[in-house]
């Protein structure tokens, strides 16, 4: 995984609550069996004037001029700003892949839905929850100076908004460590393989019915 330490970039204001993962990446694109290529169809229903389908040349489609990510300089943004409950709904990790493929490295919002929040860390997208009041101040700053760049310092756990303030944010120490080092979770967990086997041995006696395994082809 790509490490995340310090990032500076343009903030795009997506002034909505409850931005759901269906909106971030509509279902027709979930038919892909790949992890990449979702950037051009991020926010597809809001971003284009006509409906899209997989396999289209999205660069030829008509953009909706009213949608914030189609307006320079926000089309080059790498930090997304939204309100509460960002990423609610479907568990689709494709939503995170669409955001990172578009070029986002961080999302700042008042709150995040749990599954989206977890998925973000697996893909080096940093979700930052700040108070409603702080988020509101950042919105105002971005509206008055479009193209405003914020600086996110993960080791220090701060977001610096020029001319406004520097804000601290919370993050679990384990997640922070994995992001900074760009670590692969699975390899880390497999270091505990003996503990997993010991657990299975113990449980096999306690709840043997949970070990009546299915066999393919039965």
């Amino acid at each position, binding site marked *: 995984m790509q490490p995340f330490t310090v990032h500076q970039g343009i903030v795009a204001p997506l002034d*909505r609550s409850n931005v759901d993962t269906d909106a971030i990446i509509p279902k027709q694109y979930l*038919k892909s069996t790949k*992890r990449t290529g979702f950037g051009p169809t991020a926010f597809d229903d809001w971003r284009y004037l006509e409906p899209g389908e997989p396999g289209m040349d999205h660069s030829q489609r008509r953009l909706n001029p009213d949608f914030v990510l189609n307006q320079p300089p926000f089309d080059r943004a790498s930090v997304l700003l939204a309100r509460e409950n960002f990423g609610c*709904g479907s568990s689709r990790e494709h939503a995170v892949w669409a955001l990172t493929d578009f070029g986002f490295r961080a999302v700042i919002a008042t709150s995040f839905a*749990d599954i989206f929040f977890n998925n973000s860390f*697996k893909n080096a997208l940093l979700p930052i929850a700040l108070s409603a009041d702080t988020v509101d101040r950042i919105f105002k700053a971005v509206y008055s100076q479009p193209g405003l760049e914020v600086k996110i310092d993960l080791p220090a756990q701060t977001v610096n908004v020029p001319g406004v303030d520097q804000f601290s944010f919370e993050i679990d120490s384990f997640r922070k460590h994995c992001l900074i080092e760009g670590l692969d979770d699975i390899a880390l967990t497999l270091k505990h393989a003996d503990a997993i086997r010991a657990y299975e041995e113990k449980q096999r006696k306690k709840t043997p019915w949970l070990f009546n395994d299915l066999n393919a082809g039965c």
Partner: protein
Amino acid sequence: MAGKTLFEKLFESHVVHEQEDGTVLLYIDRHLVHEVTSPQAFEGLRLANRKPWRTGSMLAVPDHNVPTVNRADGITDPVSREQVSTLDRNCQEFGIQEFPMNDLRQGIVHIIGPEEGFTLPGATVVCGDSHTSTHGAIGALAFGIGTSEVEHVMATQTLLQKRPKTLLVRVDGTLGPGVTAKDVVLAIIGEIGTAGGTGYAIEFAGSVIESLSIEGRMSVCNMSIEAGARAGMVAVDEKTIEYFRDKPFAPKGEQFEQAAEYWRTLKSDPDAVFDKVVVLDGSEIQPQVSWGTSPEMVVPVGGRVPDPDEEPDEVKAEGMRKALAYMGLEANTPITDIAIDKVFIGSCTNARIEDLRAAAAVIGPGDRVADNVKLAMVVPGSGLVRAQAEKEGLDKIFINAGFEWREPGCSMCLAMNADRLEPGERCASTSNRNFEGRQGQGGRTHLVSPAMAAAAGIAGHFVDVRKYK
């Protein structure tokens, strides 16, 4: 010391290892797999040269992309076809039990898990799908995960988790006639909001929840995620235990009795402490209809479309205006004046046999789907539900009234297959999400119970089922 909540009992019994910062390695007993969120995980295993830890803990089924008509002819859309055949190939390569598209046992992943006795009380259950919360209805700890986590569970049989907080939602009293589990959960979401359960595991309890069938409890737990909670659960009682007698993959004979004895301990202790408690009076819950583009935007059928001008919170009022514009609705319109174009009875929320019985029960002899309704479809949750419904003659009731009787799958719940709303079409739907574009770009979804959906199909607009029959 205070007693333990059901959640704590389930969680603690699955801790393999705990780090200092409280990150837990949690053992996973049951892993359900479907075609949409698994291909990248299988690919990840292959790239890293890893094998699944315990293939026998996995059950796979294609459900999101499958057609609901002429299935024997295969899938016409080449992209959908490729995704389903990728699942078939992956299951073969890794030796994972799959119910392929034309197997009688195929169905929506959350319907077949309990139906097969694959998901069991006391188990940890995951799936790359947010509605995995459904399985909490049987006293399991069940939650949705992303694709990276799917790969993690495949490779290690565990997940890295932080303990969520606990929320008790107690629904007291008794439900009035015509009020169903779906109305209960919509009312709960209306009360606590779509982020009300974020960061929590919910336990649903109280006399109303106890009175529900296992199927009804599944409808409630299914929509925990719409309240923001990854997991929702209900304590085990004798109904739960009876439900699992004779299920194909459930324990049998002596092992069943041993399991049942353990399952009876799966309830919160009387002195357990929850981080938050919400209480609703079940006797006040009425049949619900959603009016907006978020499941919390819901009102009783006797109500009106709310007015943003009366909302003091400006951010909320703006959200309401956006929703009304998308839904093509005027504030203050009586709900029963809203005419519909389509009816969808199905999804992992409401496609079990009890749901189909409830929908069929409101259709009288001689009733016909209203002329303004272009399509009314019934999509059973699994092949076995479909077969049972046909045995009871429910298919005839639907077909005679002009409903289409389809083959099982997710269908128009998310419109990944050919079943969808056209822009501007309005649907009475028994599914769980009314997001913009969920049932087709520009489509307008109203979430209701199966009985309310069937009645709306006959009347052509929403009606109060309690007055309807």
